[in-house]
């Protein structure tokens, strides 16, 4: 069985290193080499490789952002490479993902390739996908301010900063991010988005809405014990959490 691989690294010599080591693996076929994250994303979607050698520090999208932008089903077996990134290394360790520390020896490289092969043979991608999900949670948690939120549409990738978002609306397995006049659909559960935004001044005010506290203009009573939140842009959102809870959060900011 032949393994189709993509090498992604912004340094030509780093790609050359992987390429030359792969020359010893007769069953691995290099189908593309990419020098930045955007290229990697495109090539992975186009070629659907089995194996991806992915450098963490890359321009445009970094390694993690590439993974985040991919549909889970499209994510190949990934061997992360990094010269030095303590956060990334900790995230790999925690989630039992294989990674190569540059510079790596030929023996270490062979082990990584063999593990990837094993995973492919026993179709261990499902196992990897949970590891990858864990990795992404870890990375988000470790990024101060929740980091940028990646939003994909067929044409483009948008990064939203949390403070650009007015409120988040639940929509089944998706959430809709309302940012000014734009709507962005992200495949993530409301709970996961809530966890991600909690530290950046957001609060879940009902089953369906997470609101940016800084955008609240007023809270209006709509019935006995019932309130709705009026945002600065005029949007009205029903609120099911208690008023005191909201007040407590508003007092924090």
């Amino acid at each position, binding site marked *: 069985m032949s393994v189709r691989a993509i090498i992604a690294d*912004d340094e030509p*010599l780093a790609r050359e*290193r992987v390429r030359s080591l792969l020359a010893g693996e007769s069953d691995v076929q290099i189908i593309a080499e990419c*020098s*930045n994250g955007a290229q990697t994303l495109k090539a992975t979607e186009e070629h659907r490789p089995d194996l991806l050698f992915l450098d963490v520090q890359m*321009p*445009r999208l970094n390694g993690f952002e590439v993974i985040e932008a991919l549909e889970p089903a499209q994510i190949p077996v990934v061997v992360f490479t990094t*010269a030095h990134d303590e956060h990334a290394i900790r995230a790999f360790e925690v989630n039992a993902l294989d990674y190569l520390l*540059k*510079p790596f020896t030929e023996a270490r490289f062979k082990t990584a390739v063999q593990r990837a092969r094993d995973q492919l043979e026993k179709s261990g991608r499902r196992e990897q996908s949970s590891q990858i999900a864990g990795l992404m949670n870890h990375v988000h948690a470790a990024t101060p301010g929740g980091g940028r939120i990646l939003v994909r549409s067929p044409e483009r990738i948008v990064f939203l900063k949390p403070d650009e978002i007015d409120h988040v609306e639940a929509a089944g397995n998706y959430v809709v991010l309302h940012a000014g006049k734009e709507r962005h659909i992200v495949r993530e559960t409301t709970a996961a988005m809530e966890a991600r935004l909690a530290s950046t001044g957001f609060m879940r005010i009902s089953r369906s809405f997470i609101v940016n506290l800084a955008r609240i203009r007023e809270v209006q009573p709509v019935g006995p014990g019932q309130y709705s939140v009026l945002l600065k842009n005029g949007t009205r959102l029903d609120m099911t959490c208690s008023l005191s809870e909201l007040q407590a959060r508003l007092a924090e900011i």
Partner: protein
Amino acid sequence: MWLAFGLWTVFVAVALSRLLANSSPTVWVVHDEGSPKSAQKARAMFRTDAGLQRIYPWVLFGPYVALLAGCFPLERGRLRLSLPLNLGACGIFAVTCHLVNTRTSLKATNIMFVQSQATGAHKTNVVQIEMFQGGGRGSISDHIQKNFAFSGATNAGHSNLIGITGQHDFTDPHLTNLLAQLPPAMRPGLKPPPPAVALLPTFLDLLAYGAIIGLMHSVHFYRRFRERERSALVLESNLANARLSALRAQLHPHFLFNSLNAIAALLRRDPRLAEATLMSLSDLLRLALSQAEKQEVPLREELNFVNRYLEIQQTRFGDKLRVEQDVPPQTLDCRVPTLLLQPLVENAIRHGIEPTENGGLLRITAHRCNGKLLMTVEDDGVGIANKAIDVDSTNASLAAESTPLPVARNGIPITKVVPNNGTGIGLANLRARLETLYGRNQALELVSRPHRGVIVRIEIPWH
């Protein structure tokens, strides 16, 4: 401090008005018990009193002189303004002192009588001093008569006037009037002082002025000395910081391990290049570790260091990093602060060129221009993202759209970089070092053109 000066001015005004308003003379009569020593004592007292009178204007105006000397010290580079100012002030001081003295001496004219009593030659040595002010309560003569049971005729032989203090205007009606009141035997034969002596007070005034100025200057220069000492320490610590951050950049794990990885890749294909890169890397590390503890090095040395760094980066990034240098040979001996260019080059690569897709161009230039060395480090990379620049810099970015480059006024940076991504810290350190080394005679400006890269311009004195 200005409040203190305001209050002092009020005090001076009050004191002057009191000193000047009352113009009637004062007479001191000393009743001596007969010892020649007491006469001497009295004389000494007179002198002290005369001296005190002279000191009044010094005390009153001294603070102003000190203020002037503090604000406009006589030092190199500021003489054009401060010398005439000080000379003028000196003249005004002398004239004012003279005027005040003449005026005060009129009314505070001290005339001392010593009355010796022949019979009490061996009595106690007490000198009795009485002070009279002319005008008001009867004539001086009455006072003298009453208090000393004094009769000019009988005691003529034993009385003599031993002194008149102050500056006397011998035509002053007050004085002549006063003297006329005295018993005839006691009238002193007044002689105007010789002209040289008349000039003496003014000479003393000038001397006082000199003393105040001298005192202020010694304080000023002592402070300056301490300041120099302190700024030398600051310089040292800034250099140490720069050295440390350069070292950290060289030893930055990302840089180091990626370089080693690149060398590992090269070893198979091109062992010679691998060797050369390894040598560059070790040179760089050695230079970073042993950077001489000099504040300044010739540009040649700084460029040498930067070039080792660039060699490695070019090996790592290949075509992605293009380097252009426009450094005429005659600039190579000009002295520049140690580790001036390296952090700028590193920033340009890390934050400008590395994030680009197709790579970019790094340009280093150095030129002599109007007695200054003008250096630029420029990249055509992504520029600094807005988040890294605070609001003040919006204008700078806009201004940068037009050529020529906007020049920072007075060395005040037109773009401020928030120290949050490593860029700012390096630049802040560099700016502090330039300031300490060259004062206002330098400029460091950073112009970010979004998506068209960053230019850092440095101006230092050519030396």
